[in-house]
Protein backbone atom coordinates (compact mmCIF):
# COMPACT_ATOMS: atom_id res chain seq x y z
CA UNK A 1 0.00 0.00 0.00
CA UNK A 2 1.07 3.55 -0.66
CA UNK A 3 3.44 5.22 1.75
CA UNK A 4 1.38 8.36 2.26
CA UNK A 5 -1.83 6.43 2.88
CA UNK A 6 -0.17 4.16 5.37
CA UNK A 7 1.34 7.08 7.28
CA UNK A 8 -2.06 8.79 7.36
CA UNK A 9 -3.66 5.62 8.67
CA UNK A 10 -1.12 5.36 11.47
CA UNK A 11 -1.96 8.88 12.58
CA UNK A 12 -5.69 8.27 12.30
CA UNK A 13 -5.46 5.04 14.27
CA UNK A 14 -3.62 6.85 17.00
CA UNK A 15 -6.35 9.49 17.29
CA UNK A 16 -9.14 6.91 17.25
CA UNK A 17 -7.49 4.90 19.96
CA UNK A 18 -7.27 7.98 22.18
CA UNK A 19 -10.91 8.82 21.45
CA UNK A 20 -12.04 5.30 22.33
CA UNK A 21 -10.52 5.65 25.75
CA UNK A 22 -12.58 8.74 26.54
CA UNK A 23 -15.90 8.13 28.23
CA UNK A 24 -17.50 11.54 28.44
CA UNK A 25 -16.99 13.47 25.20
CA UNK A 26 -17.02 16.81 26.98
CA UNK A 27 -14.34 15.72 29.35
CA UNK A 28 -12.38 14.69 26.29
CA UNK A 29 -12.24 18.32 25.27
CA UNK A 30 -10.79 19.57 28.52
CA UNK A 31 -8.43 16.66 28.87
CA UNK A 32 -7.18 17.03 25.34
CA UNK A 33 -6.71 20.77 25.82
CA UNK A 34 -4.54 20.10 28.87
CA UNK A 35 -2.43 17.65 26.87
CA UNK A 36 -2.07 20.24 24.11
CA UNK A 37 -0.83 22.88 26.54
CA UNK A 38 1.67 20.41 27.93
CA UNK A 39 2.92 19.60 24.46
CA UNK A 40 3.25 23.31 23.70
CA UNK A 41 5.42 23.67 26.79
CA UNK A 42 7.46 20.72 25.68
CA UNK A 43 8.07 22.02 22.19
CA UNK A 44 9.11 25.41 23.58
CA UNK A 45 11.56 23.70 25.93
CA UNK A 46 12.78 21.80 22.88
CA UNK A 47 13.46 25.06 21.03
CA UNK A 48 15.37 26.38 24.05
CA UNK A 49 17.40 23.17 24.34
CA UNK A 50 18.42 23.23 20.71
CA UNK A 51 19.35 26.91 21.04
CA UNK A 52 21.53 26.12 24.05
CA UNK A 53 23.29 23.36 22.14
CA UNK A 54 23.77 25.65 19.18
CA UNK A 55 25.32 28.36 21.34
CA UNK A 56 27.68 25.87 22.90
CA UNK A 57 28.88 24.72 19.51
CA UNK A 58 29.21 28.37 18.47
CA UNK A 59 31.44 29.03 21.46
CA UNK A 60 33.64 26.07 20.61
CA UNK A 61 33.87 27.21 17.01
CA UNK A 62 35.06 30.64 18.17
CA UNK A 63 37.68 29.13 20.46
CA UNK A 64 39.04 26.82 17.81
CA UNK A 65 38.99 29.61 15.25
CA UNK A 66 41.11 31.77 17.53
CA UNK A 67 43.59 28.96 17.94
CA UNK A 68 43.66 28.43 14.20
CA UNK A 69 44.28 32.16 13.60
CA UNK A 70 47.10 32.09 16.13
CA UNK A 71 48.78 29.19 14.36
CA UNK A 72 48.41 31.06 11.11
CA UNK A 73 50.17 34.09 12.59
CA UNK A 74 52.90 31.87 13.97
CA UNK A 75 53.41 30.28 10.56
CA UNK A 76 53.83 33.75 9.05
CA UNK A 77 56.22 34.87 11.78
CA UNK A 78 58.25 31.71 11.37
CA UNK A 79 58.43 32.15 7.60
CA UNK A 80 59.49 35.78 7.95
CA UNK A 81 62.53 34.68 9.91
CA UNK A 82 63.24 31.87 7.48
CA UNK A 83 62.14 29.02 9.74
CA UNK A 84 60.15 26.95 7.29
CA UNK A 85 60.31 23.97 9.66
CA UNK A 86 58.45 25.89 12.36
CA UNK A 87 55.97 27.26 9.83
CA UNK A 88 55.27 23.76 8.59
CA UNK A 89 54.74 22.59 12.14
CA UNK A 90 52.25 25.38 12.80
CA UNK A 91 50.37 24.72 9.57
CA UNK A 92 50.18 20.99 10.30
CA UNK A 93 48.57 21.72 13.65
CA UNK A 94 46.26 24.22 11.99
CA UNK A 95 45.14 21.57 9.51
CA UNK A 96 44.25 19.27 12.41
CA UNK A 97 42.15 22.02 13.96
CA UNK A 98 40.54 22.81 10.64
CA UNK A 99 38.97 19.38 10.34
CA UNK A 100 37.49 19.77 13.83
CA UNK A 101 36.23 23.19 12.81
CA UNK A 102 34.61 21.88 9.64
CA UNK A 103 32.87 19.22 11.68
CA UNK A 104 31.62 21.75 14.21
CA UNK A 105 30.38 24.05 11.46
CA UNK A 106 28.32 21.22 9.98
CA UNK A 107 26.88 20.51 13.40
CA UNK A 108 26.13 24.17 13.89
CA UNK A 109 24.17 24.39 10.65
CA UNK A 110 22.22 21.26 11.42
CA UNK A 111 21.28 22.59 14.87
CA UNK A 112 20.27 25.89 13.36
CA UNK A 113 17.99 24.10 10.89
CA UNK A 114 16.53 22.01 13.71
CA UNK A 115 15.86 25.14 15.74
CA UNK A 116 14.01 26.73 12.83
CA UNK A 117 11.92 23.61 12.25
CA UNK A 118 10.99 23.35 15.89
CA UNK A 119 10.13 27.05 16.08
CA UNK A 120 7.82 26.58 13.09
CA UNK A 121 6.25 23.51 14.69
CA UNK A 122 5.68 25.45 17.90
CA UNK A 123 3.94 28.28 16.02
CA UNK A 124 1.72 25.88 14.07
CA UNK A 125 0.73 24.01 17.19
CA UNK A 126 0.01 27.27 18.99
CA UNK A 127 -2.39 28.32 16.22
CA UNK A 128 -4.21 24.96 16.39
CA UNK A 129 -4.40 24.98 20.17
CA UNK A 130 -5.92 28.47 20.08
CA UNK A 131 -8.46 27.29 17.51
CA UNK A 132 -9.19 24.22 19.57
CA UNK A 133 -9.87 26.28 22.68
CA UNK A 134 -12.40 28.41 20.84
CA UNK A 135 -14.02 25.35 19.29
CA UNK A 136 -14.16 23.62 22.65
CA UNK A 137 -16.06 26.49 24.27
CA UNK A 138 -18.48 26.68 21.37
CA UNK A 139 -19.17 22.95 21.49
CA UNK A 140 -19.70 22.99 25.23
CA UNK A 141 -22.07 25.96 25.05
CA UNK A 142 -24.04 24.92 21.99
CA UNK A 143 -24.46 21.18 21.83
CA UNK A 144 -25.86 18.46 24.03
CA UNK A 145 -23.53 15.65 24.93
CA UNK A 146 -24.91 13.42 22.19
CA UNK A 147 -24.71 16.08 19.49
CA UNK A 148 -21.29 17.15 20.59
CA UNK A 149 -19.70 13.79 19.90
CA UNK A 150 -19.13 14.20 16.15
CA UNK A 151 -17.86 17.75 16.49
CA UNK A 152 -15.53 16.69 19.21
CA UNK A 153 -14.23 13.80 17.15
CA UNK A 154 -13.47 16.13 14.25
CA UNK A 155 -11.65 18.69 16.33
CA UNK A 156 -9.82 16.04 18.26
CA UNK A 157 -8.65 14.14 15.19
CA UNK A 158 -7.46 17.38 13.59
CA UNK A 159 -5.39 18.48 16.52
CA UNK A 160 -4.21 14.98 17.32
CA UNK A 161 -2.50 14.86 13.93
CA UNK A 162 -0.73 18.14 14.60
CA UNK A 163 0.31 16.87 18.00
CA UNK A 164 1.70 13.69 16.50
CA UNK A 165 3.66 15.72 13.96
CA UNK A 166 5.04 18.05 16.63
CA UNK A 167 5.83 15.07 18.85
CA UNK A 168 7.93 13.54 16.07
CA UNK A 169 9.73 16.84 15.54
CA UNK A 170 10.52 17.02 19.26
CA UNK A 171 11.82 13.46 19.25
CA UNK A 172 14.07 14.13 16.29
CA UNK A 173 15.37 17.33 17.84
CA UNK A 174 16.02 15.57 21.13
CA UNK A 175 17.97 12.83 19.37
CA UNK A 176 20.02 15.40 17.54
CA UNK A 177 20.78 17.58 20.56
CA UNK A 178 21.71 14.45 22.48
CA UNK A 179 24.27 13.53 19.83
CA UNK A 180 25.56 17.09 19.73
CA UNK A 181 25.81 17.25 23.47
CA UNK A 182 27.92 14.12 23.50
CA UNK A 183 30.25 15.49 20.83
CA UNK A 184 30.44 18.96 22.33
CA UNK A 185 31.19 17.33 25.68
CA UNK A 186 34.00 15.34 24.09
CA UNK A 187 35.55 18.51 22.65
CA UNK A 188 35.19 20.33 25.97
CA UNK A 189 36.96 17.42 27.63
CA UNK A 190 39.72 17.56 25.04
CA UNK A 191 40.12 21.26 25.73
CA UNK A 192 40.14 20.77 29.48
CA UNK A 193 42.63 17.91 29.33
CA UNK A 194 45.02 20.02 27.30
CA UNK A 195 45.09 17.50 24.46
CA UNK A 196 43.65 20.07 22.12
CA UNK A 197 46.09 22.66 23.45
CA UNK A 198 48.87 20.34 22.46
CA UNK A 199 47.41 20.24 19.01
CA UNK A 200 47.16 24.02 18.92
CA UNK A 201 50.44 24.99 20.37
CA UNK A 202 52.32 22.05 21.79
CA UNK A 203 52.65 21.37 25.51
CA UNK A 204 54.29 24.72 26.20
CA UNK A 205 53.59 26.33 22.87
CA UNK A 206 56.97 25.31 21.51
CA UNK A 207 56.47 27.20 18.26
CA UNK A 208 55.89 30.45 20.10
CA UNK A 209 58.82 29.75 22.43
CA UNK A 210 61.12 29.23 19.47
CA UNK A 211 59.85 32.39 17.83
CA UNK A 212 60.32 34.32 21.07
CA UNK A 213 63.79 32.92 21.55
CA UNK A 214 64.68 34.24 18.15
CA UNK A 215 62.99 37.52 18.98
CA UNK A 216 66.06 39.72 19.51
CA UNK A 217 67.98 38.40 16.53
CA UNK A 218 64.77 38.32 14.54
CA UNK A 219 64.24 42.08 14.72
CA UNK A 220 67.74 42.76 13.48
CA UNK A 221 67.51 40.10 10.79
CA UNK A 222 64.17 41.40 9.60
CA UNK A 223 65.47 44.94 9.48
CA UNK A 224 68.53 43.81 7.56
CA UNK A 225 66.43 41.85 5.11
CA UNK A 226 64.25 44.90 4.56
CA UNK A 227 67.23 47.17 3.96
CA UNK A 228 68.82 44.70 1.60
CA UNK A 229 65.59 44.39 -0.28
CA UNK A 230 65.34 48.17 -0.65
CA UNK A 231 68.93 48.49 -1.79
CA UNK A 232 68.64 45.62 -4.22
CA UNK A 233 65.53 47.21 -5.74
CA UNK A 234 67.00 50.67 -5.86
CA UNK A 235 70.19 49.46 -7.52
CA UNK A 236 68.74 46.96 -9.97
CA UNK A 237 68.06 49.32 -12.92
CA UNK A 238 71.43 50.99 -12.52
CA UNK A 239 73.14 47.64 -12.52
CA UNK A 240 71.77 47.03 -15.99
CA UNK A 241 73.19 50.33 -17.16
CA UNK A 242 76.48 49.63 -15.51
CA UNK A 243 76.92 45.98 -16.39
CA UNK A 244 80.05 46.64 -18.34
CA UNK A 245 81.74 48.24 -15.37
CA UNK A 246 80.02 46.60 -12.42
CA UNK A 247 79.56 43.13 -13.92
CA UNK A 248 81.47 41.47 -11.14
CA UNK A 249 79.55 43.24 -8.40
CA UNK A 250 76.07 42.34 -9.62
CA UNK A 251 76.18 38.65 -8.76
CA UNK A 252 77.56 39.53 -5.36
CA UNK A 253 74.64 41.80 -4.59
CA UNK A 254 72.11 39.20 -5.76
CA UNK A 255 73.74 36.60 -3.56
CA UNK A 256 73.73 38.88 -0.56
CA UNK A 257 70.07 39.77 -1.05
CA UNK A 258 69.29 36.08 -0.89
CA UNK A 259 71.45 35.62 2.17
CA UNK A 260 69.34 36.58 5.18
CA UNK A 261 67.04 33.56 4.92
CA UNK A 262 68.96 31.18 7.19
CA UNK A 263 68.63 32.74 10.60
CA UNK A 264 72.02 33.08 12.09
CA UNK A 265 73.08 34.55 15.38
CA UNK A 266 72.77 38.29 15.07
CA UNK A 267 76.35 39.53 15.46
CA UNK A 268 78.02 37.72 12.50
CA UNK A 269 75.18 38.70 10.14
CA UNK A 270 75.26 42.26 11.34
CA UNK A 271 78.99 42.37 10.71
CA UNK A 272 78.99 40.65 7.38
CA UNK A 273 76.02 42.25 5.70
CA UNK A 274 76.92 45.95 5.75
CA UNK A 275 80.16 45.04 4.05
CA UNK A 276 78.58 43.05 1.24
CA UNK A 277 75.81 45.61 0.95
CA UNK A 278 78.13 48.52 0.79
CA UNK A 279 79.77 47.24 -2.36
CA UNK A 280 76.76 47.02 -4.66
CA UNK A 281 75.44 50.29 -3.27
CA UNK A 282 78.67 52.08 -4.15
CA UNK A 283 79.37 50.23 -7.34
CA UNK A 284 76.58 51.61 -9.53
CA UNK A 285 77.49 55.16 -8.55
CA UNK A 286 80.99 54.45 -9.71
CA UNK A 287 79.57 53.02 -12.93
CA UNK A 288 77.42 56.13 -13.46
CA UNK A 289 80.36 58.36 -13.03
CA UNK A 290 82.40 56.55 -15.65
Amino acid at each position, binding site marked *: *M*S*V*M*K*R*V*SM*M*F*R*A*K*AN*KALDRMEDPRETLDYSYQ*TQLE*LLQKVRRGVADVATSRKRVELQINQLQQSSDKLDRQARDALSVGREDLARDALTRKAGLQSQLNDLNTQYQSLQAEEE*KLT*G*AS*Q*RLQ*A*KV*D*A*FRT*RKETIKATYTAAEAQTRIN*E*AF*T*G*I*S*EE*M*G*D*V*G*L*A*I*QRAEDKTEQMRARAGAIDELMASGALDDMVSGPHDDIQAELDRMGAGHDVDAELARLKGELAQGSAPRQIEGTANGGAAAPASAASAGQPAPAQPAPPVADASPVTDAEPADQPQAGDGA
Partner: protein
Amino acid sequence: MIVRILGEGQLQVDDSAASELNELDAKLEATVERSDERGFASALAELLARVRTIGRPVEPGALEPSELILPGEGATMAEVRKLLAGDGMIPG
Protein backbone atom coordinates in the same frame (compact mmCIF):
# COMPACT_ATOMS: atom_id res chain seq x y z
CA MET B 1 -7.99 17.44 -0.19
CA ILE B 2 -5.61 18.30 2.60
CA VAL B 3 -2.10 16.88 2.50
CA ARG B 4 0.28 17.14 5.42
CA ILE B 5 4.04 17.15 5.02
CA LEU B 6 5.44 16.12 8.37
CA GLY B 7 7.46 18.93 9.91
CA GLU B 8 6.02 21.50 7.49
CA GLY B 9 2.27 21.62 7.97
CA GLN B 10 -0.85 21.13 5.89
CA LEU B 11 -1.47 22.04 2.26
CA GLN B 12 -4.71 22.24 0.31
CA VAL B 13 -4.32 20.27 -2.90
CA ASP B 14 -6.84 20.05 -5.71
CA ASP B 15 -8.54 16.63 -5.87
CA SER B 16 -7.63 16.37 -9.54
CA ALA B 17 -3.99 15.99 -8.54
CA ALA B 18 -4.70 12.70 -6.78
CA SER B 19 -3.69 10.40 -9.62
CA GLU B 20 -0.46 12.27 -10.25
CA LEU B 21 0.45 12.11 -6.57
CA ASN B 22 -0.46 8.44 -6.46
CA GLU B 23 1.96 7.76 -9.27
CA LEU B 24 4.78 9.53 -7.46
CA ASP B 25 3.82 7.73 -4.30
CA ALA B 26 3.93 4.37 -6.07
CA LYS B 27 7.48 5.18 -7.17
CA LEU B 28 8.34 5.94 -3.58
CA GLU B 29 6.76 2.71 -2.40
CA ALA B 30 8.79 0.74 -4.93
CA THR B 31 12.05 2.15 -3.56
CA VAL B 32 11.04 1.06 -0.05
CA GLU B 33 10.32 -2.44 -1.31
CA ARG B 34 13.72 -2.84 -2.91
CA SER B 35 15.47 -1.02 -0.02
CA ASP B 36 16.86 1.59 -2.37
CA GLU B 37 17.83 4.38 0.01
CA ARG B 38 19.08 6.70 -2.75
CA GLY B 39 16.05 6.15 -4.90
CA PHE B 40 13.91 6.70 -1.84
CA ALA B 41 15.49 10.08 -1.12
CA SER B 42 14.99 11.33 -4.66
CA ALA B 43 11.47 9.91 -5.01
CA LEU B 44 10.46 11.52 -1.72
CA ALA B 45 12.01 14.84 -2.72
CA GLU B 46 10.13 14.70 -6.02
CA LEU B 47 6.81 13.95 -4.35
CA LEU B 48 7.27 16.70 -1.76
CA ALA B 49 8.32 19.24 -4.38
CA ARG B 50 5.22 18.47 -6.43
CA VAL B 51 2.91 18.82 -3.42
CA ARG B 52 4.50 22.13 -2.49
CA THR B 53 4.10 23.41 -6.03
CA ILE B 54 0.45 22.57 -6.43
CA GLY B 55 -0.62 23.02 -2.80
CA ARG B 56 -1.71 26.13 -0.91
CA PRO B 57 -0.99 26.35 2.82
CA VAL B 58 -4.04 25.61 4.98
CA GLU B 59 -4.82 28.40 7.42
CA PRO B 60 -2.97 27.70 10.68
CA GLY B 61 -6.07 27.58 12.89
CA ALA B 62 -7.85 24.88 10.83
CA LEU B 63 -8.66 21.73 12.79
CA GLU B 64 -9.28 19.37 9.89
CA PRO B 65 -7.38 16.12 9.66
CA SER B 66 -5.35 15.47 6.51
CA GLU B 67 -6.33 12.94 3.92
CA LEU B 68 -2.73 12.13 3.11
CA ILE B 69 0.37 12.46 5.26
CA LEU B 70 3.85 12.53 3.79
CA PRO B 71 7.19 11.94 5.52
CA GLY B 72 9.15 15.15 5.94
CA GLU B 73 12.03 16.40 3.86
CA GLY B 74 15.18 14.39 4.45
CA ALA B 75 13.40 11.50 6.17
CA THR B 76 15.33 8.26 5.84
CA MET B 77 13.84 4.95 4.89
CA ALA B 78 14.53 3.65 8.38
CA GLU B 79 12.54 6.50 9.89
CA VAL B 80 9.62 5.86 7.60
CA ARG B 81 9.69 2.14 8.36
CA LYS B 82 9.64 2.94 12.05
CA LEU B 83 6.75 5.29 11.49
CA LEU B 84 4.78 2.55 9.76
CA ALA B 85 5.81 -0.24 12.06
CA GLY B 86 4.06 0.43 15.33
CA ASP B 87 1.45 2.59 16.97
CA GLY B 88 3.89 3.54 19.71
CA MET B 89 5.93 5.53 17.24
CA ILE B 90 3.72 8.58 16.88
CA PRO B 91 3.89 10.58 20.08
CA GLY B 92 1.52 13.29 21.31
